Each structure stands twice: as structure tokens, then as C-alpha cells.
């Protein structure tokens, strides 16, 4: 219990540090790390993540529409509320956890046990400024971008697949979708994906900088801790987010009316 509290406290401190020290992103070495992180998480992974996201999104659409025996209006609502608002950000986040969360935790844990983090301190470079701030911002931005890709592909795939399983044309589905969708839907999923990305990165950085030991055996354990905990946190945040937005904060404003 004490360990869990310590980890939560450590992650919160890292997150606060990131918010307080955003200005270090202007420093050339930190900006380089940010660029590399965005390239690694947002660019080089795009094809694989979008493809996997599209498969999952399209599968959900086909399955749900078929099971519910939906008409065009219901199919569009499912696309909007399930895929755009919920599944899109969640799929992107889970895929980013698997790839970037594990990579960041492993890289930082290796740097910690091999004394490279100490080298930064010896150069009077704050490891949190140089290692954590650009990774958290880079992963949060990349996760938001990947979410948009996944949403576009999954919704597009659903619209393409819809006419095969229900009695509605692509034009009808698209027309209904753009009539029903609001900027609030996009803002909701973007804010959520930014938060997911930041949470994944903070947990990965925390476990990378605090591996359970100083030997190389601690490196995979740090990665496992980061992946399991950030997956759990993403799911938890999704539930809290859905409850706050649908249940309390905007109740009635964007409440689903199926």
C-alpha cells in the first residue's frame, strides 16, 4: 500500500514538474528529444497503429450493427458515440502503451542502471527536464494525432462496411454522421487522448527513472510495471472521464439518446 502511494505521489510530482517546466522545450537539446519522441510515437508507428486500430474499429462496427440489427440512424450513433468518442482514443492509447510506454520505460531504466542519468546530473542537466518533459509532451501530442487517425479510419471503415450489413447507403450514413457530430465530440476525444498520452508517458518515465533495483534485471521489470500500470490507468481514466462528462458535468448536454 505504501508502495502504491509512493508511486502515485512520484507520478503526480513528475506530472506537476512537466506542467511547471514546459518552457525547457525551447532549449535545443530538449527540443531534439521532443522531435525524436514525436517521430518515434507519432510518425514511425503510424502505419502499424492505424492499421490495427482500423481492424478493431471496423470489427466493432460490423459486429455491433449486426447484433443490434441497426438502421442507418443507429449505425451512425454507434459510429459517433462508441467509435469516435470512446473506442478511438482507447485503441490509440492501448497501442501507444504497448509500443512507446514499454520503449520509454526500458530506455530510461537502462539509462538509470548504467549511470547515464547520473551523468546528466553531473552536467547540471535536470534529468526530469531533459528526459521527462519532452517525452510526456511528445507522447501526449502523438497520442492525440494517432487517435484522430484511428477515428478517421475506423469511422470511415464503419461507413464503408455499413452498407454491406444494413440497408443504408454510404452517402446516407455520412450525411447522418456529419449532421449529428459536433465540435464537442472532437474536443472531448482530443482532450481525453492528450490526457491518456500524458498518463502513459508519466508512468513510463516514473518506472524508467525508478527501476526496482540497480542491475540490468530491473530493466524488464520496470517495463512490465509501466505497461501494466499505464494500461490500468488509461482504463480508469476512461471510466472517470465518461462518468464526469456523461453523468455529471454535461449531463443532458451531450447525453446519448439512443
Amino acid at each position: 500500500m505504501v508502495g502504491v502511494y509512493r508511486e502515485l505521489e512520484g507520478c503526480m510530482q513528475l506530472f506537476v514538474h512537466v506542467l511547471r517546466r514546459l518552457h525547457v522545450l525551447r532549449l535545443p537539446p530538449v527540443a531534439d528529444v521532443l522531435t525524436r519522441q514525436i517521430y518515434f510515437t507519432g510518425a514511425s508507428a503510424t502505419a502499424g497503429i492505424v492499421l490495427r486500430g482500423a481492424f478493431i474499429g471496423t470489427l466493432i462496427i460490423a459486429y455491433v450493427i449486426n447484433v443490434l440489427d441497426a438502421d442507418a440512424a443507429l449505425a451512425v450513433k454507434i459510429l459517433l458515440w462508441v467509435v469516435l468518442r470512446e473506442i478511438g482514443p482507447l485503441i490509440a492509447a492501448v497501442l501507444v502503451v504497448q509500443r512507446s510506454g514499454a520503449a520509454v520505460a526500458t530506455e530510461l531504466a537502462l539509462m538509470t542502471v548504467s549511470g547515464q542519468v547520473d551523468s546528466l546530473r553531473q552536467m547540471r542537466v535536470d534529468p526530469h527536464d531533459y528526459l521527462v518533459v519532452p517525452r510526456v509532451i511528445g507522447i501526449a501530442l502523438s497520442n492525440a494525432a494517432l487517435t484522430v487517425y484511428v477515428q478517421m479510419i475506423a469511422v470511415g471503415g464503419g461507413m464503408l462496411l455499413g452498407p454491406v450489413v444494413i440497408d443504408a447507403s454510404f452517402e446516407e450514413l455520412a450525411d447522418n454522421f456529419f449532421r449529428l457530430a459536433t465540435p464537442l465530440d472532437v474536443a472531448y476525444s482530443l482532450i481525453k487522448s492528450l490526457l491518456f498520452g500524458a498518463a502513459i508517458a508519466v508512468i513510463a518515465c516514473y518506472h524508467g527513472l525508478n527501476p526496482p533495483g540497480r542491475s540490468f534485471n530491473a530493466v524488464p521489470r520496470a517495463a512490465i510495471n509501466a505497461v501494466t500500470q499505464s494500461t490500468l490507468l488509461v482504463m480508469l481514466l476512461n471510466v472517470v472521464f465518461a462518468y464526469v462528462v456523461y453523468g455529471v458535468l454535461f449531463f443532458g448536454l451531450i447525453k446519448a439518446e439512443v
Partner: protein
Amino acid sequence: MNADPSVEDARPVPHAAEAIALAYESTAEVAAGFRISVPQGGCRRVEIGDAMLKAELCRAVLDMHPGPGRRLTVLGAEVGKLAAGERAALRARVGFLPAAGGLLGNLNAWENIVLPIGYHSPRQLPKMAQRVNALLNRLGAPPRALLGKLPEEMTLLEKKLTGGVRVLVEAPDLVLAEDLDDGLDAAQRGTAARLAEAYLATHSRGTWVQLEDGATT
């Protein structure tokens, strides 16, 4: 290089603080006493037989925090009497070269060299290419061959030279070089020794302290 074995038994020896680049000593209440004292200016080689003491000295200087029962003087200032801000300012005047160069594994030599300058004084970055090239040429390390290498592709000497150049471009008033000779053959030691020469050529009032293993005298 001046040989200056300067580890002595602990005695309250009065000294002119201004002339001291680095002093580390046990205070009177500690039974097993010692005193390490390095005067300002030039290149000093300090041999310390006790590896723990050497590590403790490095840590005390890097953290600007003498442990209990210890007194640390850096560049004429007794660290224990300084406020936090003064310690930070004093720390900024000290450069440290670890035994294996202290390089980051995912950065090439050039990125490693300019990392602290880019973090602390980004306005100086445009001048760095010329300065680093000049330093590497002086050390006999061809910049074109070295600067693109990752640490895993470097020899130990190249790692030490890269770490050394990283310290030199910051022009600190005091440089602590830890085990610079360690793991090098005689010819390579000669090359590594050029780091101190290059430092003193560009920073005539600086002090280069080389901490090595050896019989404590």
C-alpha cells in the same frame, strides 16, 4: 604534468583559502583523519589509494555537500558556509570528467559534447562547431571520424576525449578528471594528457585536478 600527491593526515593546517582550488578534509572530531588539498592553477595529479574516499570526494564536490565530519573547500570558498544559491553558483564553475566519459548512449559524440552548452547557454551553440573542431584537432582526434560516432562505437580513449571536450567547451574554473589514465596504454595516456594541456591553454587561471588510484601518501 605535475605530480602532487597531497593526501595527508588530518591536522588543522592553516592555509590561505584564496589559493586553494580544492580541499577536502576530515574535521577534528573524526578519528581517521585525512586532508586533500590542491592549490589553484595548473594541472594537478592526486593519487588516492582509497576508492571509497575518491568516490566520496567526487560526490561531495558534485553535490556541493560535504558529508558529516568533512570540510570541503572549492575555489577558495568553504562550501559548508555557503547558502544554497552560492553553492549552485560555485557548482557551475566546476567541470567533471568521469572515468568513461559519462556519455549518453543514444547521442553521438557531437550531441554529447553540446548537450550541456545547449541546456545552460543555448546562445553559444552557433560557435560550438568551430570550437569543438579546433579542440579535437588539437587533441589529435579527427572531428569528422569522431563526431558522428555513438558511444558504443567508440574506444575508451575516444569516450574520454569526447567527455573531456564536453567539459572544456564549458570552460569551468576547476576540472575534476576521475581516473583519466585508467584503462589506457602509455600512448593513449599521452593523448589523454593533452586534454589538460588544451584546458590550460584556453583557461590559464583554471585548475585541472586528475584523481587517480595509487598509493596514498
